[in-house]
């Protein structure tokens, strides 16, 4: 199947961007890759993802997905599982999409740290044509992804797969090479590196000034995770208490649980709703049997004989003061004790800047991060750039990727004295929240659940808990997408103000705004395409080229040489909303004689296309649409029926046998019911042809 163009190139009418795209720090084309999955165009979807995102396998698993938080489907039922769809693509369609770029420029770039920011910068600089070397202190790539994130959330082969594709662009990674020890910034400059990008991350746990912190059995969260992630185990006791309410705390608790102690608990200052991690993570933590103490603060660590015995806590009055600053206050006299023989402190990360000895010129913030210009990522030392956690303090995976990408452009601009910009980051208005009156008109579609490892299996291993979407689940989930900001638009130079679109839209979206003489189709458009077909002036089209309404694919079909020898040839236009399974039932007859063109909603198809198919050489046209109660748009059944009757009448006028043009409403496009219809139609058309001959 050939797409017109998988990129959003024509931005003239795409004035309002989808919130999922705007919410993403790297401006990943979430809507469009979801739309491609909905159409079964998985390779194209992966390609689109990879063009913007160097770590799709990791993002698909552990991204905090602000895209889903902003998804407009929140208004109708639940957001699209955008991240899980990305994981589906990376699991099944990961491939090299670039040929190795040439060396366009002589400069060498050094990148310190093979974490998300460093990998993103290296990827983008290599694609521009620079020679990039990453210096990594560990023996494996990934940075905090590898050292911090537990394998049950992010298997290491997922990191390796993405990194291998970056290396294939010519990016070299020098492992076991620590800045400040094996190489120095000055040394790299002397070696001829024209720019250095520091993205070393935050690898130390923040300390807590607390009585009893010196007891044996008090561990630092990052150290603990790092040990388990490198060695596969760590020394802990039987009763574990994690202090902290963020993602790292949940990781520590769930990791500890897999080392089979008797009990794991988490204590945090925040109330459940205030916890700085996703609700899904908290739910999973609880589901695995971890006890959660909310709104408690540590007063002191209790110990006996130098060993931890528990934590004395105070009840929290509030975590944030009136100025919304982190400033916890406690109820006096509310002391209580949580027993524990191991306490893991997961209350944040901090930098280790020991590599900056003799680099007094590099400005450091009070929080221990490197100060870099927020736009150029240049530090106070010329030629040295920095990004990722070491600048952000604490960033998300995508925020770090974004910093790497932006730094790559900035380094190029500085070296070449250019003003290159990535238009994806331009400010654009977003599609507004769906109008309340429209919510009931949009069909509710159940969000697909992630298949999960059973509880028993989980706790006995570090195997990945989330098993990934099957093709069928992925397509079903992607088809829930409302294609925000990419729906129909009216070309005001062609519109004649006939009001047809206003009358036919099942969602009441087109309107004549006060004082305007052409119709306006707002952001609530669901992309059903009925108005596009019915507009007598042909003034309406889709904003993106993702939807060809069948015409280009019909042309492509008839451009194939082999098609001329197919007799009888039946073209089947079918609704892709009824086509979820990857395993379409088929037989030799259908395989040979029935050529299928799937469209997300047959309401998009111009009746003249059916005539074109016959005109260009089809012996029959078979329309298989969804049943009335199965229509995704709730309103296309009548239109498809009417249009079929209209075309049937035309063919009758031409004296053609009615059996060559058939419309069937079926519940699945992939099961035996379709097969029976298609097989029968081949027989029907064969007999029509033989009658015509005689």
């Amino acid at each position, binding site marked *: 199947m050939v797409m017109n163009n998988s990129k959003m190139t024509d931005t003239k009418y795409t004035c309002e961007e989808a919130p999922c795209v705007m919410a993403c720090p790297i401006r990943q084309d979430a809507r469009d890759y979801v739309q491609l999955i909905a159409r079964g165009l998985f390779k194209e979807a992966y390609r689109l993802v990879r063009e913007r995102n160097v770590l799709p396998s990791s993002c698909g698993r552990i991204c905090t997905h602000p895209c889903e938080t902003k998804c407009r489907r929140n208004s109708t039922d639940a957001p699209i599982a955008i991240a899980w769809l990305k994981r589906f693509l990376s699991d099944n369609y990961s491939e090299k999409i670039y040929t190795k770029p040439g060396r366009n420029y002589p400069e060498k770039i050094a990148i310190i740290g093979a974490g998300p920011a460093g990998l993103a910068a290296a990827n983008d600089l290599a694609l521009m044509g620079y020679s990039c070397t990453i210096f990594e202190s560990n023996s494996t790539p990934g940075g905090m992804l590898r050292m911090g994130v537990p394998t049950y959330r992010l298997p290491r082969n997922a990191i390796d797969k993405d990194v291998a594709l970056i290396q294939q662009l010519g990016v070299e990674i020098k492992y076991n090479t620590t800045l400040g020890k094996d190489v120095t910034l000055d040394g790299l400059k002397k070696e001829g590196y024209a720019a250095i990008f520091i993205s070393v991350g935050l690898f130390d746990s923040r300390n807590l000034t607390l009585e009893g912190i010196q007891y044996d059995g008090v561990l630092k969260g990052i150290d603990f995770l790092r040990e388990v992630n490198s060695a596969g185990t760590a020394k802990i006791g039987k009763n574990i208490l994690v202090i902290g309410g963020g993602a790292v705390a949940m990781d520590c608790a769930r990791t500890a649980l897999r080392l089979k102690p008797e009990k794991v608990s988490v204590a945090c200052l925040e109330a459940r709703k205030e916890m700085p991690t996703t609700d899904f993570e908290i739910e999973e933590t609880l589901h695995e049997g971890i006890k959660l103490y909310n709104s408690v603060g540590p007063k002191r660590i209790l110990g006996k004989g130098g060993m931890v015995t528990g934590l004395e806590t105070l009840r929290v009055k509030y975590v944030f003061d009136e100025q919304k600053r982190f400033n916890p206050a406690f109820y006096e006299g509310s002391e209580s004790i949580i027993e524990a023989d191991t306490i893991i402190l997961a209350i944040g990360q901090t930098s280790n800047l020991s590599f900056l000895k003799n680099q007094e010129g590099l400005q450091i913030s009070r929080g221990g991060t490197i100060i870099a210009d927020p736009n150029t990522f240049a530090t106070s030392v010329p030629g040295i750039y920095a990004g990722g956690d070491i600048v952000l303090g604490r960033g998300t995976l995508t925020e770090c990727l974004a910093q790497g990408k932006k730094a790559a452009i900035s380094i190029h601009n500085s070296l070449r004295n250019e003003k290159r910009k990535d238009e994806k980051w331009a400010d654009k208005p977003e599609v507004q929240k769906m109008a309340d009156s429209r919510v009931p008109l949009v069909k509710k579609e159940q969000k697909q659940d992630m298949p999960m490892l059973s509880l028993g299996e989980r706790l006995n291993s570090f195997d990945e808990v989330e098993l990934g979407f099957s093709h069928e689940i992925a397509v079903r989930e992607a088809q829930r997408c409302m294609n925000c900001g990419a729906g129909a638009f009216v070309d005001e130079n062609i519109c004649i103000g*006939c009001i047809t679109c206003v009358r036919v839209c099942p969602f009441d979206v087109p309107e004549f705004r006060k004082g305007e003489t052409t119709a306006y189709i707002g952001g609530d458009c669901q992309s059903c395409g009925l108005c596009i077909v019915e507009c007598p*002036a042909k003034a309406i089209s889709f904003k993106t080229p993702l939807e060809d309404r069948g015409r280009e694919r019909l042309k492509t079909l008839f451009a194939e040489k082999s098609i001329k020898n197919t007799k009888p040839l039946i073209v089947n236009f079918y609704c892709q909303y009824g086509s979820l399974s990857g395993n379409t039932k088929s037989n030799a007859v259908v395989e040979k004689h029935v050529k299928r063109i799937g469209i997300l909603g047959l309401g998009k198809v111009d009746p003249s296309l059916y005539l074109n198919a016959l*005109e260009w050489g089809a012996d029959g046209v078979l329309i298989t649409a969804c049943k009335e109660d199965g229509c995704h748009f709730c309103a296309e059944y009548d239109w498809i029926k009417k249009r079929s009757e209209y075309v049937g009448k035309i063919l009758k006028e031409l004296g053609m046998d009615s059996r060559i043009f058939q419309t069937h409403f079926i519940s699945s496009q992939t099961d035996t019911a379709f097969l029976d219809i298609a097989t029968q139609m081949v027989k029907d058309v064969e007999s029509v042809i033989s009658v015509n001959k005689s």
Partner: protein
Amino acid sequence: MIVADSKPFQEIEQMLSEYKKVYIVGCGSCVTICHTGGEKQVAELASKIRLAAKLKGKAIEVIEDSILRQCEWEFIEEAKDVVADCDAVLSLACGIGVQYMAERFPNARVFPGLNTTFMGAPTEQGVFWERCAGCGNCIIGSTGGLCPVSRCAKSLLNGPCGGSQNGNCEISNETPCVWNQIYDQLDTQQLLSTMENITPPKDWRTGAENHPRKMVLEHLVMKKE
């Protein structure tokens, strides 16, 4: 607007039977809005013509196009070259547009693809009713805003007649009796007494009985060079 209906296909086929290269041209105004003569119908008809030719083993080339308004010299001028290049022109405009094409391109064989039917409007999507007969002497100010000339089967000026049955006209129970509607409307407006005024015979000379009609706006006419 002007409403027009598609001509029976057989008639179109008959008209074009001698020609190998046909220019089918739609009109972007009234007939586009009434879904019979726009770009969309041009595409459908072109496809139908090609299919019909194919079924008969004949070759025909169809050029598809649409012009903003065929009733403007300036707009139809753009078709000059393609008209010269084709054997025949099938205009999907109202009768005015077809004539303009024929008049502007006297050497071309110009055929009508539509039957121009009436002046009317869509009362709902896909349904068009006649609303004006162009009588040249409008009286609807006294009939509650409803036109008995175009909407009464007999164009009665003093109705209803005895054929008004249950609110419908005797010619079809799908055709509302406009005089019944006028009565209801005047009732709503508390003007029922005006029903008793007898409208004298109308001067029909301003209407279709006086072809061809002409209008000149002296203040707009420009001197010819």
